[in-house]
């Protein structure tokens, strides 16, 4: 039991950077803009966050710097794709290369330097709840923030009017405009916010999970965050589920490795990917439609909502107002 709790707890806190990155990207894409620079942004902000925290000896400033770096990269994506109407994928891809290389170049003085890190912060009373307490409430501020972000974003999308409008501009911007939405302004705001979250994810990496800075420290997690957004069907809860699933598979790889199982260890880190492809194939198949059609209406709708993952219809397109 102890062991099980320890594993769950480590999955939750180790997944925090991916949660921030994939939810930041979810925010971008729900507004209709693909920010393909996640990997590069995370690298640059991980470096910047660590460098600032190391120099100023302030973790808060480190995270703040990382968020600003994330927002700056995102503002380039926004300017290129919304104002200049260039291809979003091309802009994001170039930026991911540039930001990644920039992090290696600027980060040289900080490679493998021991630096500050986030301390754990158990929450009184809540930590005493059996099982739930040690799993959820003996963590640190970053992990708690990741919980809050998941719930907060879900509430924002589905319970608030601005959240509904956000879903609208990603789905059909011309209809949002007809209903009084300022499409370009809202897209700018959400890209900057999403970028800041991705930047935060970078700092959560270098100051929380994989302490310190080294060349290419995020090891492709930015790309994985992009894949998780698709896996999660652009829904905060499902995206979070995808991120934790990925974390769980990675954790089981480490555990099984140490238990001496006769399976090549390389298999486990790779497992999430075929699993994602499989789920996407199943959830978007016509066969599922056929099965769903046998169910009563209420159950059918609930399941459709749960399983369907259609990208925002206007994702990657430009909006031209008459």
């Amino acid at each position, binding site marked *: 039991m102890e062991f099980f709790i320890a594993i769950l707890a480590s999955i939750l806190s180790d997944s925090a950077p991916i949660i921030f990155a994939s939810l930041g990207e979810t925010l971008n894409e729900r507004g209709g803009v693909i920010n393909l620079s996640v990997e590069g942004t995370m690298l640059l902000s991980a470096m910047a966050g660590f460098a600032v925290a190391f120099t100023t000896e302030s973790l808060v400033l480190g995270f703040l710097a990382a968020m600003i770096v994330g927002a700056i990269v995102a503002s380039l994506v926004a300017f290129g794709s919304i104002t200049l109407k260039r291809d979003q994928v091309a802009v994001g891809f170039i930026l991911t290369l540039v930001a990644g290389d920039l992090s290696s170049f600027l980060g040289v003085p900080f490679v493998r330097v021991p630096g500050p890190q986030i301390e754990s912060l158990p929450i009184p009373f809540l930590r005493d709840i059996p099982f739930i307490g040690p799993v959820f409430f003996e963590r640190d501020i970053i992990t708690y923030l990741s919980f809050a972000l998941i719930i907060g974003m879900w509430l924002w999308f589905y*319970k*608030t*009017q601005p959240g*509904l409008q956000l*879903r609208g501009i990603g*789905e*059909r911007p011309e209809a949002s*405009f007809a209903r*009084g939405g300022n499409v370009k302004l809202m897209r700018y705001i959400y890209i900057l916010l999403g970028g800041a979250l991705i930047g935060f994810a970078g700092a959560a990496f270098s100051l929380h999970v994989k302490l310190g800075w080294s060349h290419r420290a995020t090891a492709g997690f930015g790309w994985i965050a992009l894949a998780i957004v698709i896996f999660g069907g652009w829904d905060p809860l499902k995206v979070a589920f995808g991120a934790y699933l990925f974390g769980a598979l990675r954790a089981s790889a480490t555990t099984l490795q140490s238990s001496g199982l006769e399976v090549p260890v390389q298999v486990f880190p790779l497992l999430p990917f075929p699993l994602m492809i499989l789920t996407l194939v199943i959830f978007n198949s016509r066969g599922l439609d056929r099965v769903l059609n046998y169910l009563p209406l209420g159950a059918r709708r609930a399941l459709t909502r749960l399983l369907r993952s259609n990208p925002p219809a206007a994702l990657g397109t430009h909006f031209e107002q008459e």
Partner: protein
Amino acid sequence: MRVELKNIHKHFGAVHANNDVTLTVEGGSIHGLLGENGAGKSTLMKVLSGYIHADGGEISLDGKKLKRFNSPADALRHGVGMLHQDPLDFPPMTLLDNFILGCDASLLQPRARAEKEFRELCQQFNFDLDTNAFVSDLTVGERQQLEIIRLLWLGARTLILDEPTTGISAPQKIKLFATLRQLAADGKSVIFVSHKLEDVEDLCHRVTVLRRGQMAGEAKSPFVTERLVQMMFGQQLNIGKRPNVELGAPVIEFDHLTLKDDRLTVPDISLSVRMGEVLALAGLEGSGQQLFLQACAGLLPPSAGQLRLNGIDLTRKPYENFLRAGIAYMPADRMKEGLVPGLSIEEHIVLAKRGKKDALIDWTRTRQTATAQITDFNIKGIPTTRVEALSGGNQQRTLLALLPPDLKLLALEHPTRGLDIESTLYIWGKLLERRKQGAAIIFASADLDEVLQYSDRILVFFGGRVIETVRSSETSVEQLGYLIGGKKQ
């Protein structure tokens, strides 16, 4: 609400899209706005609904003068709502989400209140809409109903409807008209934009006709059709009678053909279509006509039965064989399935060339062919015009121009949908020429007048079955209307 548009001018580059147009719509009336495609109707309505700003002129609502609206939302705040031909809604969302999006709530969604008022509005107009359903599962007619109650909920007192009867079924049209009459009786004003004479005559109290951006005239109900046509076109159009053509040998034969896709089964069709014959497929959208056309074209292999062309068995043969046998298929969605956006007319001619192709393209000859086709088919464009820049009518003519010369069978899906009367007549003129040369034509259409006017025989589809085969000379729009609704008299 009384709406007045005075001396509206609007230029797009060199085009004077609205030239001194004045329109007055009384509260409690349904006002028709009639005109061909490109007559300036949409421009005028975009000015009134806040999409574009007029270069000159003024708008007044209930006698109060306004300079202009800043945006569609601004127009709606003043009580002017617009229902677009393709309703501007959000298909993956639920009806309730759609209903709420755009209301003036600041932070939290007013779901409970909205749901209650949604129900009340549905009840008032006798609409059967479920707040938890997804918009993507609705028909166009139901999406219109949703937009209407949404606009009313947000305070619309004048409703503009742009070509609302395109793409909806006959029963839905009846319901829509009843709703509009109810709105007018409540003192609201309705502006009904259309190029369909019969709809305008049926519904409107007054009508304003636009031609080439100018007012061509006004008329009051009851209308005189010839007079309206004359205003629209500046001349009387000859709606040509179909010349009689001797029918020849059977071109295509179906023997107990059964078709299936994952939604629908079309069981057991046996019939043959002869040279020079025009067969119409009538029925509500999605009743099996499309499957039948695709099977004719070799795009959908039948799950049972046989299909012969000129006596040769083509059942489950590849599409190539159908092409070589002289079958052409024109899908309904011109831009998605028919033409390639981004390519020019001459590039399409190269693409459509059948038979042996050279490795290099002879552009000089292609351009000559393109120029000849453009003149022959009266396409408003030049060989290098990209197809997406053409109007709907010109796109359809381009598609026709791309068909190879010696066809045995043309399978057409909604050949004139969304086109104005002039283009429609032109296209049918070209099609009937093919028929005179011995081709058979099978076409699906939702326009019953078109079905009756051009076909020799009509297959009526209902829920996947052919419920009746009638000769066009022995039926009427009324009878077809019943059959399409599944009622045999």
